[in-house]
């Protein structure tokens, strides 16, 4: 009996400490979510979609985003970060009382989708294709969903940007590496990276599988890329250029022998939003430099 009472009182004590902390947190988020004064309260759950909404001039209406929404950086102070799509739960989304949720069909997990549907909040799930046409279509769809018809300028900017891509005479074979410790995840066909590499005048070094897969040292040698391509954060994590050159198999490839390693901002490269043209031009420049 005594043990029960003791256990119960410890539990209540621990709980009340936790609760006090929780309310403190809630107060701070309330203060920040008051900022937008427009009628729409949008939750965007994809970096590319977030960029589109912001580029259309509705940044202030975004009340919360997922972890991939890194651009524009000012969102970090105005919108709540809901974390990674795959570990997100419904209550934090409901907590910002959104009037509209925008998501991509590739990111959202079925459990969360079911919860969002039954919550009754207006939700638009877009099919994201990693092509220029797909991006333009997405821009048009997102614009319509938030009630903005002035989207043509974004599409025109993509075209204008893409015109700056210089043709490369001998297409370099580019291997995108998503580095996680010793595991090399590389991008196969139908990935945003493969698509961007093609747009930038290169050639994806992996042609025999789709999506991201771990690649063995032997297969790295067989793919024999001319250039290794990383996210800036990924390259840092892998120990910079030196770390990348030490990855198993890399030293046997053209890229390894010539030390051709490039890196770009992850959000810019993988977003396939309004900055897709910009990303292609950036990659194009890096590829031209590295093939000189």
């Amino acid at each position, binding site marked *: 009996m005594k043990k029960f009472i003791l256990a119960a009182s410890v*539990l209540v004590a621990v709980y009340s400490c*936790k609760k006090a902390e929780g309310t403190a947190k809630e107060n701070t988020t309330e203060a920040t979510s008051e900022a937008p004064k427009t009628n729409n309260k949008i939750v965007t759950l994809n970096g590319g979609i977030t960029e589109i909404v912001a580029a259309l001039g509705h940044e202030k209406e975004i009340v919360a985003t997922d972890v991939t929404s890194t651009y524009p950086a000012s969102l970090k102070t105005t919108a709540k970060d809901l974390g990674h799509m795959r*570990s997100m739960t419904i209550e934090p989304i409901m907590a910002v009382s959104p009037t509209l949720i925008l998501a991509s069909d590739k990111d959202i997990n079925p459990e969360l989708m079911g*919860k969002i549907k*039954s919550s*009754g*909040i207006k939700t638009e799930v877009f099919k994201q294709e990693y092509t220029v046409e797909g991006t333009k279509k997405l821009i048009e769809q997102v614009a319509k969903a938030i009630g903005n018809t002035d989207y043509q300028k974004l599409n025109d900017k993509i075209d204008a940007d893409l015109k700056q891509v210089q043709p490369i005479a001998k297409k370099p074979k580019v291997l995108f590496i998503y580095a996680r410790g010793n595991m090399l995840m590389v991008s196969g066909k139908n990935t945003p990276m493969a698509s961007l590499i093609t747009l930038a005048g290169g050639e994806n070094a992996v042609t025999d599988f789709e999506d*991201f897969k771990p690649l063995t040292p032997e297969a790295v040698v067989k793919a024999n890329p001319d250039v290794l391509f990383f996210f800036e954060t990924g390259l840092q994590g892998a120990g910079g250029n030196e770390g990348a050159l030490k990855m198993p198999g890399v030293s046997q490839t053209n890229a390894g022998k010539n030390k051709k390693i490039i890196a770009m901002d992850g959000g810019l490269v993988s977003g396939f939003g309004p900055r897709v043209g910009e990303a292609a031009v950036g990659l194009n420049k890096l590829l031209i430099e590295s093939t000189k």
Partner: protein
Amino acid sequence: MKAQSKLYFYLIISAVLLAIIAVLSLNTGVYDFGEKSPFMALWQFIKGDSGLSLSDKYVIWDVRAARIIMAILVGSMLSVSGTSLQGLFKNPLATGDLIGLTSGATLLAAIAIVLGGHFKEYLPEAVQFSLVGIAAFIGSFLSMMLVYRISTSGGKTNVVMMLLTGVAITAIGFSITGFLIYISKDEQLRDLTFWNLGSLAAATWTKNIILAVVAVIAYIILLPKGKALNAMMLGEKDAQHLGINVERLKKQIIIIVALMVGSCVAFSGTIGFVGLIVPYILRLLFKSNYTFILPLSAMCGSILLLTADTFSRSIVAPSELPIGILTALMGGPIFIAILVKFKKSL
């Protein structure tokens, strides 16, 4: 009779404790109900008050209440499964996770999830749920049969054999689940990883009803088995002399435990160690008296899991910690404590 009223007393105490934790849990979360408290919102919902906004109604009923009920049901069933297995095998280490039931259930559920995707969309929602549930049940049932067959000879169960069989099943399950992870896409990979650590985030009332039906059927059969399990402690032959149909008892426990573990894994992923922690604490308090610890474990399992879940969704808010991390953290030291205590008898 005195013992009986003592049991009721403890049951009432733990029910009150559970109710207090449920109330605290209902009050925990990042959603802000504005002027009113979450209890007020719940009361308005129960009364059918039209003044309750749709979002308030959804969060209080379909998110928080559904999740609390799921934690209560899953915690209770995992704990009772552990207690029953420990009575059956006469060993404090026998739990669904350690002898491979959870792993078997996880494996078949994962297969159903990955391969079921091809035809799942043509099935109604209820059948989709039961597809994974049935697969998880078959997985835990097959593992249970395998463990039992391999570790029992001449009516005696060899504990070391039982645990090693569990290790083997877990290894096989892990490797095939690993293969599924390998062939899955990046986003499926994250789902599988998250799911492997357990979560109650996907709680819905449909799932709760299914779990409740399983729990009611299981408890009607299992909870009165305290005396029989006490007799089993004397050894199977002696139990038989006392008029207990040992074979029937074994079969019942095996099937029901497989059903309970299977349905819990299907809806909440792998939440380990609940079946180890609760009976261990109860045995410290009441020795191995199953007439006491069997019904009490049904209550205390709920208390443990609901507490763990409330923490898991408030520690790193607005995100949440997979609950399996917390239960394993609590269970690990207890596992070592049991090993040390029973060093000689293992």
